[in-house]
């Protein structure tokens, strides 16, 4: 297994929102999806996944519903709500701006100052 990065503070929520935006997922599915998209570069602590899901559900950004899993078992599926969609959008914009700004700072050469 290649070296995994620990998640930055506060980014888990955004990742979960993104993961379920691609289609309804159960908790374990969210974990797999994040690892799959990040090509196993990010490590999500399994213990902290569920509190995050509950928090997002409480805020109304995702909605949980009981359904049947691939192997015919009852599982709780989460999907993105309309409010969640807006939230994801603003979070993404904020992240990109932040990332741009930080990248710009980090790329600065002495001549540019």
């Amino acid at each position, binding site marked *: 297994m290649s070296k995994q990065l620990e998640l930055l503070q506060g980014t888990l929520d955004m990742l979960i929102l993104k993961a379920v935006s691609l289609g309804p997922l*159960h*908790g*374990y599915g969210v*974990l797999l999806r994040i690892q799959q998209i990040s090509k196993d570069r990010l490590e999500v*602590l*399994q*213990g*902290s996944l*569920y*509190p995050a899901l*509950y*928090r997002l*559900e*409480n*805020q*109304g950004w*995702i*909605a*949980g519903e*009981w359904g049947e*899993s691939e*192997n015919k*078992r*009852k*599982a*709780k599926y989460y999907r993105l*709500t*309309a*409010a969640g969609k*807006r*939230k994801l959008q*603003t979070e993404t914009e904020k992240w990109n701006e932040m990332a741009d700004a930080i990248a710009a700072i980090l790329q600065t050469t002495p001549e540019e100052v």
Partner: protein
Amino acid sequence: MTFWPQLKSWSHSVFGRARAEREMDQELRFHIDAYAEDLVRGGHSQQEALRRARVEFGGIEQAKEVCREVRRFTFLDSLLQDLRFGLRQLRKNPGFSAVAILTLALGIGTNTAIFSLTNQILLRDLPVPHPEQLVVLRSPGPNHGHTWSDVDGTAQSFSYPMYKDLRERATMFSGLLVCRDIPVNVSGRGETQAAQAALVSGNFFQALQVLPTFGRLFTASDETVPGANPVAVLSYGYWLQKFGANPSILNKPLTVNGIPLTVVGVAPKGFYGIQIGSTPDLFIPVTMKPQMVPNAVQSIDDRTDHWLPIMGRLNPGMSPARAQAALQPIYQPILESDAKLLKLSGNDFQRFIAKPLLLVNGEHGRLVLQVDKQEPLLVLMSMVGLVLLIACANLAGLLVARGEARRREIGVRLAMGARRLRLIRQLLTESLIIACAGGAAGIALAWWCLNAAVAAIPEGGGMRALATSLDFRVLFFAIVLTLATTILFGLAPAMRATGLSLQSALKDQGSNVSEARSSVGLRKVLIVSQVALTAVLLAAAGLFARTLINLEHVNLGVDTGHVLQFSVAPELNGSIPARTLSFADRARNELAALPGVRSVSISTTEIFAGEDSSSNFTSEVYRPGDDTDAMYDYIGPNYFSTMGIPLIAGREFTESNTAESLKVCIINEKMAQRFFPGRNPVGLHIARGAGRLNANPQMEIIGVVANSKWDDARSDIFPFLYMPYSQNKNLGRLTFYVRTEQDPSHMAATLRSLVQRLDPNLPVNNLRTLEEQVSNSMASDRLVAVLSISLALLAALLAAVGLYGVLAYSVARRTREIGIRVALGGRRADILRLVMEEGGRLTVVGSAIGIVAALVAMRWVASLLYGVTAWDPLTFIVVVVLLAVVSGVACFIPARRAMKVDPIIALRYE
């Protein structure tokens, strides 16, 4: 819908904790199982896979706890956030907050106070087990002999032998008891003090199923033969107040009316006998009547002395109707033997033995206080009920207005991504803060009102005994009603405001007329109903105020200024009439010798206290068929000059009218006209008793005086006959009247110490000015008038605030329209009229409805009015004028603002 998940998880956290817990378990188990399955697929053994899945997940219980935490936190956290935000909002609008909270406090406070008072007087059961089994006995019909009565004609008064006969024979009762309140003097512990005693049967406490605080209560063995049961039970309150709740009083003697009684026990806390408002200090066996009621003419075994109220407890399961039917065959033979004893014959005999014995509900005890107070209380209750309605309407109007005013803010917040439920909850929280603050202020106001109302009731008459405790059921009801109002009218605009499309909310409100029209309609309905209810209250207040003014200015026929009065009852100290007479003469002379005293006199019965005696009198010019009823009293020399009652003919009593001298009397004008029409009665004769001049000694009429009132300001002028107290064979009580040069209240202490010097064991009662005495007799009229005026004025103020609110809002909304009108050449006066007309219409409609309602409703209070009819035109005109002025002011302020609208600014307003 975006608020569904929140609602779901919120409801889970509140109602479905177990279910949420189960689901969380299931979800986490699924996670571990799924991971384990993947691991198995990757080549691990089943057991190893499961173990690894668990380890990699980390602490499962820890994770669960964090999940639970998340759930709880978001709910509590957002609630606190709502509260903080709500408080900030209210602070930002102090005007709105103050009016809303005061409105609520007014509604809740007045209702709780008045309903608490009403409940104590009209609704409360006797504080004994199974009050529903209690009945009061009544036997309407003719009584022969002497009858004492406090209520219900003479139907509820029975002789002691009659009571004993019934008690022996009536088996449908588990107990048949008597209880009669009497005043007594208690001494033996320093100063002699007046107290209330209840003469009761031996089975009294057993029949009421009351247990002692300590010691013992009476049994049948405490009611043997007259004079043989010198024992007493103290009431809990008296024991606490006079003996500091000291148990050593037990088996000690207490001197009552000069007779030592042994204290055998203390009644339970809160027990007051069988009559609400009566507060006996001690209970004494009925067989002690000869010792406790001085100078009684008739013996306790006299079958013609009707003086005892009877109450019974029915056997369990016995219905009052069945008991009543079974009682008649028992009562009939007793009546017949009584009739024979009275030597009745013919019609009198038939009418006497036809008397029924009826049972009336005794759950609330004997209804004595209630008879007088019921109507004023019901009227006050209706009025505060109206105030509560007005308060609710006003609050609803305020909340609707506020909801409308905040549409823009709400629109902005919705656009920023706030969820609808969260916003609604926020608005509701604000309403609830107002409701809670109003409730708290209401409790304070209720407590104050109740204390003020009880304090306004003068001593005597029983009302003072009322506890000033709030009725929490009523408080609960009032708070629930206002909570419902705040939620309903706080929620409706919140729902609408949050439901509207973002676009329309964000557009300028001024151009968006149709959106807000329905809420303006609602507010107009609220205003109209407020004005109507206020009109009813104002009409009632006006009529009660006029009643009070009429009563205060009624010609009493007595000059009440500069007169001090007090009463003593030497007979309760065992003073025989001859001694009382010499005391009266001595006290009168010593009082008259005091500096600053102009004159002094005495009556036997207190005036303006609702106490009177009446009898038949037959004059020497009597013709059969004449009305012979007249009231009478015994008075001293100088009575008429002291009281300021003009002498019309003849002369006053003087010192020369003694017990031995010629029997004389003085009559009032009304009596002179009725008994001696067209003749000068001075020098003519009259005697007590009905029909032809009978065996009673004749009295010579020596004077005629002007008419004056006796019982109270409301009472009619009766024929009245005055006799000298020196010629009263049963003289036992005296009321002194002292006319002073200066302010009479300064002399009170001097008078008291003078009486103390003459007889240190004689308690001085009711020491007050005659003006206070008259004023006390109108206490309930004053209470009704003052309360109704205050309530009506507050209601008018609330209506004005409501009206102002609607118009101010409507002007603000129409700023642009007004600007256009002005720009196109509309005159300012027309603009003013436009707004005034809008408010005027609401006032006219509301007043019209209110006046019609008041005309109907006021008939119902007609019996409380004096000197004014229920449809008194002047009152109604004043009500209309007052409403017009109040609404005029409320309309003028926004109208003036509309008039001053600058078209340039208004058109740029967009």
